[in-house]
């Protein structure tokens, strides 16, 4: 078969397509969030491994690093991390089931208005549950960190 040696990249949506979640419904929004939280959490994780490594330099080093992180901004950042990790985990579990073909319905004979069975209430409620769990975890984290 004729192969295309150098596929054209003109008119590709590019990263703009990844970053704009607004046009196609909740599943696209959850894709956007999953990517965003994933990258954010990896950056946090690298910083956290570095941050916790200060323990090997003794109590003074540890305490001075705590002064940096145990601030209002540090707590707010940690609340974002709590929300991101809860959403990423819950949505990730939903995605694992989806990638395994579970919760999508079965193929059939489509008829007008041709609503796709895969974008069903199970997927949308899974996304909403992930968002609500993330909000609840952030709320709980806020209570713990700010001692309310």
């Amino acid at each position, binding site marked *: 078969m004729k192969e295309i040696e150098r596929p054209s990249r003109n008119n590709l949506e590019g990263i703009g397509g990844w970053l704009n979640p607004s046009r196609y419904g909740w599943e696209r929004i959850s894709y956007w969030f999953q990517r965003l939280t994933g990258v954010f959490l990896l950056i946090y994780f690298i910083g956290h*491994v570095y941050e916790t490594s200060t323990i090997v330099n003794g109590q003074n080093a540890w305490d001075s690093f705590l002064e940096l992180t145990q601030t209002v901004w540090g707590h707010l950042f940690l609340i974002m991390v709590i929300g991101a990790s809860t959403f990423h985990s819950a949505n990730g579990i939903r995605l694992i089931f989806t990638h395994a073909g579970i919760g999508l319905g079965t193929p059939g004979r489509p008829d007008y208005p041709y609503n796709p069975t895969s974008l069903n209430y199970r997927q949308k409620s899974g996304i909403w549950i992930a968002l609500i769990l993330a909000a609840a975890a952030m709320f709980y984290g806020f209570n713990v960190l700010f001692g309310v």
Partner: protein
Amino acid sequence: MDLMSCLECNESIKMTSRTILKESQIMKIHYITGIAAVFVVALHIMMRLVVPFEQSLEYNYIIANYKNIVYVLILEAILVLISVHGFNGIRIILLELRQSRPWENMVTVVTISSMIGLIAYGTRTIIVANGL
């Protein structure tokens, strides 16, 4: 005018490169590390909540945690699982962004070495702190 000209991609559309692991095997690892990480990270967070939060961050309390072999194993598990899952995720994102043999090889090398580097650095912290 050549509509098919491309500035970045010089390779044939089907790049059949030899790989150590098939993509399906890598993705199974990605899913398994993700699910396992949820459990161990939940344990890690609970450790910060069994005592008042401020106390859980005190130097002596943390060192005592590092002396507990079970906790040390949990931390090492988190380190390995999250590093593998996270850097594989970055590998996927970077592979989708650009396609050429040099770029893909670079992505593979950088993500695997970052994975190993982070695991090594974190393991060093655990071992040294355990000895303190």
